[in-house]
């Protein structure tokens, strides 16, 4: 083990579970916390290095090879279409991308939603979804509080991630169609996956064992 494995971890809801899971297979370091002042945390003994990154940046770090591997939601992967290896479904962080409208604006068929505006943080996925339905929609890219779109008249629909559906209810929105479900994934840089294959293969095998144990 002469070379480091660099791992990009996403801040936010996937962070704690990622750190805990990796620790179970021996990939840990002192003070790997979300609010860490240090941006890079190394464990010299086990040759592991952690980068704590903004969620949407994790695939970029991995694609460039700045990190060998990373943990990221499938939703972000589908949105960004980066050239990385998707190694393992980690099962946690389950969420759903769906299309919703205000209760009052509900229409009969999906195709009745043509030529409306959709607010979303996922413009790429939203566009692909509407294309698949064969309808045109104007996509309004927002960076947060997507539910606000229909309330303030910015859009007629939203395409957004839901976990429990509570925010939808609170804002009097109804889900019209589910687009996909997503969970956290372990991803790897293409070159790292070949050049550090033995170590990464072992990591995946170990993680599978832990995940199977937890599923029981």
């Amino acid at each position, binding site marked *: 083990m002469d070379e480091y494995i660099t791992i990009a971890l996403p801040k936010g809801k996937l962070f704690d579970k990622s750190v805990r899971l990796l620790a179970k297979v021996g990939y840990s370091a002192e003070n790997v916390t979300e609010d860490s002042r240090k941006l890079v945390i190394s464990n010299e003994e086990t040759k592991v290095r952690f980068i704590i990154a903004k969620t949407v940046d994790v695939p970029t770090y991995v694609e460039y*090879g700045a990190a060998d591997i990373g943990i990221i939601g499938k939703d972000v992967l589908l949105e960004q279409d980066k050239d990385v290896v998707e190694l393992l479904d980690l099962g946690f962080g389950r969420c759903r991308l769906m299309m919703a409208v205000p209760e009052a604006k509900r229409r009969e068929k999906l195709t009745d939603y043509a030529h409306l505006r959709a607010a979303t943080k996922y413009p790429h996925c939203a566009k692909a979804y509407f294309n698949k339905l064969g309808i045109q929609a104007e996509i309004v890219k927002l960076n947060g509080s997507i539910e606000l779109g229909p309330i303030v008249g910015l859009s007629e629909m939203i395409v957004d991630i839901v976990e429990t559906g509570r925010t939808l209810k609170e804002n009097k929105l109804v889900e019209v169609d589910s687009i996909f479900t997503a969970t956290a994934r372990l991803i790897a840089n293409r070159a790292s996956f070949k050049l550090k294959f033995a170590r990464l293969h072992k990591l995946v095998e170990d993680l599978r064992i832990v995940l199977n144990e937890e599923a029981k």
Partner: protein
Amino acid sequence: MTNKVYQVPYGTKDILPGEMKSRRRIENAIVGVFDKWGYDEVKTPDFEYVDTFGKGGTKGDFRFFDRDNNLLVLRNDMTAPIARLTATRLNGGEKIKRLCYLANLYRYEEIQAGRQCQFEQAGVELLGASGAAADAEVIVLAAAALQAAGVQKFAISLGHVGFINGLAEEAGFGAAQVKELQSCLRRHDAVGMQQMAASMENIRPEIKEIFADFLFLQGGVELLERLQGVVTNPKALHALEDLRSIYDLVETYGAAAHLSFDLGLYRSLDYYTGMLFEVYMPEIGYPIAGGGRYDKMMQGFGLDCPATGFALGVDRVVLALERAGVVKAERRWDVLVAWSEGKLLEAITKAADLRKEGRSVKLCTEAMDLTGAASAVKEYCCSSLVYVS
């Protein structure tokens, strides 16, 4: 007076003095190896009619019209133009043709370090030869070219389209499932492969396991031997034998240390029919070279002819070598010839003599005194001074 800053278009870049010098050295080293192995260099147009690149072309092409409204495309790949050239201009003559090129290619890319919309490839095509000897030759030549360029640490992953197709056959896949399989492998989606395996019915558990682990089928000869004991489809078995023969030959060449098998390797170009490979370096996050066998492509140009080859990304190699600290942008000439007032004619003769001796010479354009000349040597990036007085 204007404040406009003139920019180059998105995805293009200037190569500056010094940078270009070290790049030219690398290019020459690579093309020099191709020549040593008996490859003829050719040059094709930077743009072609769109049908050279197949019906649909590729996403990200740069396209435009000529004056007769024909659709043209800036080439995004060299294999198709070389196939066209061979079928239309070199038809006949020797049965085996060895061609090589150094060319700019164009493809719309989200730009990154080592990934631009205009990029340079050096490559070879070995046309007319089927069989492991030709495949081994191009793999070893790729390694030799990289070594000549100064690359020391690299790894070659070798796979086979026949293995993938054979397994799809063994699993009884229809056209849609084959497409799904190819798409999963192309996206390097191990999770997708797991899901595909889980949904397969009426299939031997060993084969199911291969599908589930497709991206992890990496290793040495022992991996081939293990798979030979499991797989029964003749196409897949033939692919494994083919890989073994290629490996044995590469070993004879003394290059096997760089080689490992990667049976889930599937490249984004869909014309490959046999072995295919990619080369990686630790300094760069994506492959620096790749290639494979494409026995059906020439048919499209009216010549039935097996072929194999590879291309390496010159920009990526240069970048990797810079990162590894192997090359530095350096500007250096041997001699500065300076002269005192009225001595220009003698200085010209002196410079000519030195160049005849094989030295690189800069000749001052104005008279200088000796102290001025002595301090100018460094500024002119020369190693020594000859002062004519």
